[in-house]
């Protein structure tokens, strides 16, 4: 059985990929938010609530530069791990395959 790192980059406020992705995640998969998908972490929105409800076994990651560039996002939930490009490379090797929601 093969694990998957899913990558999202679309804004969850204009696109429905996030909800589709959350449905296909397996218990040992992970999700990396980059680009405008980072907006899903914005506090007090339906999307950040949906992310907080994900099972603990599912790893949640955000690309450092995309988070920092959106400086209005001041706090992120404790379970979210922030990865730079070097950690992004390592992350792709920690799962058996990578699926970009293009």
């Amino acid at each position, binding site marked *: 059985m093969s694990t998957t790192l899913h990558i999202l980059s679309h804004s969850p406020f204009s696109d429905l990929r996030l909800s589709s992705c959350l449905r296909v995640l397996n218990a040992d998969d992970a999700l990396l938010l980059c*680009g405008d998908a980072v907006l899903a972490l914005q506090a007090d929105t339906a999307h950040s609530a949906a992310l907080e409800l994900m099972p603990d076994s599912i790893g949640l990651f955000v690309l450092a530069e995309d988070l920092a560039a959106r400086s209005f996002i001041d706090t992120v939930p404790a379970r979210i791990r922030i990865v730079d490009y070097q950690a992004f490379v390592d992350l792709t090797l920690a799962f058996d395959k990578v699926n970009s929601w293009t």
Partner: protein
Amino acid sequence: MKFAIAVFSSPDQPSNRRALRFAEALLAAGHTLERLFFYQAGVHSASAHVVSPQDELDLPKAWLQLIQQHQLDAVVCIAAALKRGQLNAEEAQRYARSGHSIDAPWELSGLGQLHEAAQSADRLICFAGP
């Protein structure tokens, strides 16, 4: 480890730059980048005709530099490139077009190259969308 990267987005999409940064990071970590494969609007990354505004990142130029510096195998899907008007000298001659926008080390080839890379690399990472 061996990586392959597929780029489906044009240089004005953020994912195109993200692919470049990812490629740089994996090379910096000592991994191998077996192939870059450009498909869909990603084929515009290979254009030598792009003139980026002076204060903006010139992604086609940055890709070319990375490819030359690391002698990477950079393949542009030929079918995707033809229908988007990105030709090399050979295709421009074949289809009687007055000019071309893709030069070596960029290479035009088929989708078999994407499959070959997916099979031989340890990881295939696709970049597309915003």
